[in-house]
């Protein structure tokens, strides 16, 4: 059975997976359009390498295609599962890069021009990204999921395979470190912290 793509916008992830498992390629397309951009966004933030982020996204989606027939309904959300797979793939790649140091991973080139009259908001955003890069990997991942991917603490706990309390603690420590880092550099950044 093949459903029209526009009909699939209202179809749940698990139903789409079941349709894909029964051979419906339109369901695969719907799942890809729904989830791949989020995996790509996470991977780009973690890896800071657009090409590698695309590789991770493709690999995460491939694993979803493979697991589709065995997907156990109600056990995990597809989005959470993909975040977990994606973040694990990123972690593996970052570990391999540790030879040159995790924090020495090449900065992703900022696509916006760095001009003096750029909005303060853009400067803040850049400063935050740089400060996040100095955080331990798990803290950075938790913050990314919380603030950029808008995941709830229980969802982050599922991705990190830990308890909600541990996620709260992780986020709290990360925010403290981040705030202290940004405070200490605010003059260098030329930013007001109000």
């Amino acid at each position: 059975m093949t459903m029209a793509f526009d009909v699939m916008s209202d179809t749940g992830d698990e139903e789409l997976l079941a349709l894909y498992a029964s051979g419906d390629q339109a369901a695969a397309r719907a799942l890809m359009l729904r989830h791949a951009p989020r995996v790509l966004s996470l991977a780009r933030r973690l890896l800071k390498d657009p090409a590698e982020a695309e590789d991770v996204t493709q690999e995460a989606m491939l694993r979803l295609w493979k697991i589709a027939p065995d997907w156990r309904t109600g056990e995990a959300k597809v989005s959470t599962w993909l975040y977990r797979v994606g973040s694990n793939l990123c972690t593996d790649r970052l570990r391999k890069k540790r030879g040159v140091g995790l924090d020495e991973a090449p900065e992703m080139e900022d696509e916006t021009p760095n001009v003096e009259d750029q909005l303060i908001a853009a400067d803040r955003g850049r400063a935050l990204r740089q400060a996040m890069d100095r955080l331990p990997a798990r803290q950075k991942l938790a913050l990314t999921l919380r603030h950029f991917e808008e995941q709830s603490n229980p969802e982050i706990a599922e991705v990190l395979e830990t308890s909600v309390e541990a996620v709260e603690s992780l986020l709290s420590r990360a925010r403290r470190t981040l705030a202290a880092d940004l405070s200490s550099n605010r003059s260098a950044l030329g930013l007001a912290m109000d």
Partner: protein
Amino acid sequence: MTDTEKHQIDLDAFFKDAVDPAPELSSALMASILADAGEVSAARQGVPERQPVKRKGWLARVMEPMGGIQGMAAVGVCTVLGVTVGYASTDTLQSIPGVGDIVAGISGDPLDDFTYGGIASFSDFLAEG
């Protein structure tokens, strides 16, 4: 306002400024992902679905060591024949083509030539105790 609260408010503003729109998938990436989906589907459909092995019934499992239904049929036929031959009178057997000659060749009691520890016949054996 505590320091922590101040940091909290400041950080929220930073996070708000740092949010990027979700990246768009390149057409090459979309094509690769969909190609993977197609390949996985094709591979899955190429492998014949494993059929569950039907469990045999108890009768079949009992008969199997004895040659199955054919073996049991043969045993049954032999049993019927054996009982029939055992109970049939000599005259009846002699009337069966091919069997009559065999029956005719048997002379009297086959135990006639048997000696019971020097005693000439079975009736003598019984008489002597």
